[in-house]
């Protein structure tokens, strides 16, 4: 079977990493012919994903001349490009409801939401997404393939180590400037703790926040594995997640988690069994949960031991690849959900509107910058006593404008 996964680029991101893993598994273990097609030209060099050498990468102009059994879009911006390619079936690998990555006033939010309503068969990686998409469009085929975990890198520990006296070692992962990751709130909660703790923050920039003992930049999977292994708790207070991978990787390395009830957590986090679930915007409650783990080391060990047990039952990438192969066969068997004629044109129109709106917003912001000085001057002369002094010239100016208007008429 010949399959093309359409990706925006090959930059470092969780979503692209998942696609690359599936492509590798399909090629090496299931006899698929898989290509990655880049939906747009790249400005930056590709991130070196392991195993990418086994999977050909094409640009759109070259892929347009090919015929595939299945073409799979992997991100909302790649859907229009995927529909340009010739295939027996088109599908959409939905890794999250991607409209939620944008704030309500961002036009991209609407663009992402539109793609979820298209009559495309979907493959998704979490049950909550599958259930939501089923409700949106029951007629289409919605397949589920959970992300695997690299069991060689995140090798499950034999047993969870017992730590009785040291400060609670907390790992916070994510970029503080991504609004839905809740990194600032997580670090604030650790600051509000009373028990001794050691906080490590891993982000792309490596920038430290107040209260962080160790700030680290981009880490390889192997480095993250080592960091999880030396941590007691993974703290994630995200507001938007797809499959919610980091705490699960931590589970493999013997760490428990304190998390919000973000989408994706329900797949493997059980409150009081292998982790603790806290409320959003509850800094004191989160701090108290962390303090509990810092002081009740028997509870900490119970959660860590159960987390490790949960991890053992989670599928490897090999198993996830098998499920993806099965899902693609199921899609190949299924008839199209509905005719896709006009979908590409509709998406192009929507995309043009989004770009146009983005240009208008940019122009508005530019003008706002230009008039900032005048606005400041106006605010100054509106204050007494300048306001009284300016009242005379302002009345004269208004009278002159009215006279000029009368003359025109």
């Amino acid at each position: 079977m010949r399959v093309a996964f359409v990706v925006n680029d090959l930059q470092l991101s969780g979503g692209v990493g998942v696609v690359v893993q599936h492509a590798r598994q399909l090629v090496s273990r299931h006899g698929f012919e898989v290509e990655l097609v880049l939906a747009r030209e790249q400005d930056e060099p590709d991130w070196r994903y392991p195993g990418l050498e086994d999977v050909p990468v094409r640009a759109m102009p070259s892929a347009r001349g090919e015929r595939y059994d299945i073409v799979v879009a992997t991100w909302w911006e790649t859907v229009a490009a995927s529909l340009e390619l010739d295939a027996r079936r088109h599908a959409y690998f939905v890794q999250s409801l991607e409209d939620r990555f944008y704030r309500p006033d961002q036009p991209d939010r609407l663009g992402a939401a539109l793609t979820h309503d298209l009559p495309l068969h979907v493959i998704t990686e979490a049950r909550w997404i599958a259930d939501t998409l089923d409700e949106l469009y029951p007629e289409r085929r919605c397949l589920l393939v959970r992300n695997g975990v690299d069991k060689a890198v995140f090798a499950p520990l034999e047993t969870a180590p017992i730590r009785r006296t040291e400060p609670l070692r907390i790992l916070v992962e994510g970029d503080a400037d991504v609004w839905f990751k809740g990194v600032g709130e997580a670090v604030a909660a650790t600051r509000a703790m009373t028990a001794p703790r050691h906080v490590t923050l891993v982000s792309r920039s490596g920038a430290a926040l107040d209260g962080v003992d160790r700030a680290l930049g981009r880490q390889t999977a192997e480095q993250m594995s080592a960091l999880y292994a030396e941590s007691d708790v993974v703290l994630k207070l995200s507001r938007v997640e797809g499959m919610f991978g980091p705490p699960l990787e931590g589970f493999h390395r013997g760490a428990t988690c304190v998390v919000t009830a973000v989408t994706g957590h329900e797949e493997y986090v059980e409150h009081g069994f292998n982790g603790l679930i806290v409320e959003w915007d509850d800094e004191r409650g989160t701090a108290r949960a962390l303090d509990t783990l810092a002081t009740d080391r028997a509870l900490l060990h119970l959660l860590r031991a159960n987390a490790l047990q949960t991890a053992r039952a989670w599928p490897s990438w090999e198993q996830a690849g098998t499920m993806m192969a099965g899902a693609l066969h199921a899609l190949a068997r299924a008839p199209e959900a509905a005719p896709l004629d006009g979908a590409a044109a509709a998406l192009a129109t929507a995309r043009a509107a989004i770009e146009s709106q983005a240009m208008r917003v940019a122009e508005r912001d530019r003008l706002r910058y230009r008039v900032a000085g005048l606005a400041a001057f106006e605010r100054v002369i509106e204050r007494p006593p300048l306001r009284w002094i300016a009242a005379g010239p302002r009345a004269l100016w208004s009278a002159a404008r009215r006279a000029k208007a009368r003359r025109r008429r």
Partner: protein
Amino acid sequence: MNAGVARALRSCSAQASKNVPCPTKAIRAGSPTRGCGYGGASSGDGRRNTEAAGGTLAGYAARVPEWQERLTRDTHPTIRIEHELRYRLTAPLVRGAATWCDLGCGTGVAAAAALGDARAARVVLVDLEPDAAAQAVAELGAARAETLTADLSDETDLASLRELLLRADGGGVISCFEVVEHLRTFVPLLELLIDLAGEHDYTTVLSVPNDAFGTIENPYHLTMWGEGALEELRRMLPRDHVAAAQVPVSGSAFVIDGSAGDNSALTVAQRPSPVASHFIVAFGPRAAELRGVAAAEMTDLEGQRNWERQREANLAFHEEELAELRDYVHDLERRLDAGASGDDA
């Protein structure tokens, strides 16, 4: 060397000379394909390792001593009953079917006990090992059964299976219990079963274990199954498939004047959210005919007591031997002026 140490060393030596893989932690944590029937990693050719000589049943028991991947007459009753129950679930479909095919038939002990006189006109028994299929023929008393030796993850073997099944008209029933978790890939098998269901009137009843709820990682399972994996599987199946959960039960019964009387109407009290030990899916034209069944068997408390006491005694005995060995090694190390080793150094 004192007498205890000598005895311990003799015991170790004897154990080694038996060439029997011990159910040790090392095996549990080791490669999941050791001794496993399916998966290319075990022997390179996708065939079951056959290092153990001897009779069929002895061979299986020797190679898979702890997880009972093959059912024999000595299998723990709980495991045997739950396996039999899956065949009893299938019995109404098998009775009167044109063809019944049992994939991964093993020794046929459970199927023979459960199906009784519920037989199809034609029986096809498939296993990776010819000895197992031959044993199943004997157990089932189906001398005219057709057998096929096949690796169910191999496309060539699956083509042979397809050809064999389609030699006769009228469709049939396929049972596939506790097989897919042993396969390197179950996708070609699933494709075949879905095709047979859609195009050739075959109904498949398939089971997978709930590994996610177990506390021991089964080294013979190449894929891990649980509610999440089941959901993945179900979404690949035809929409009108039937899903069932097999739930363990605990119970008790009266024996009055030496007779159990009629306990056939077993009442199973419901729990709000029962946890499954196994998941069953059925698809094909007769899938909707499945009906709930339950089974119970009186516990062999005497045998259980003997086994548990033996295990406790053995454990205490070997712990004592280990302590003596450790003291002996430390004594040697002191005499050789070497650094002390081990946890109790």
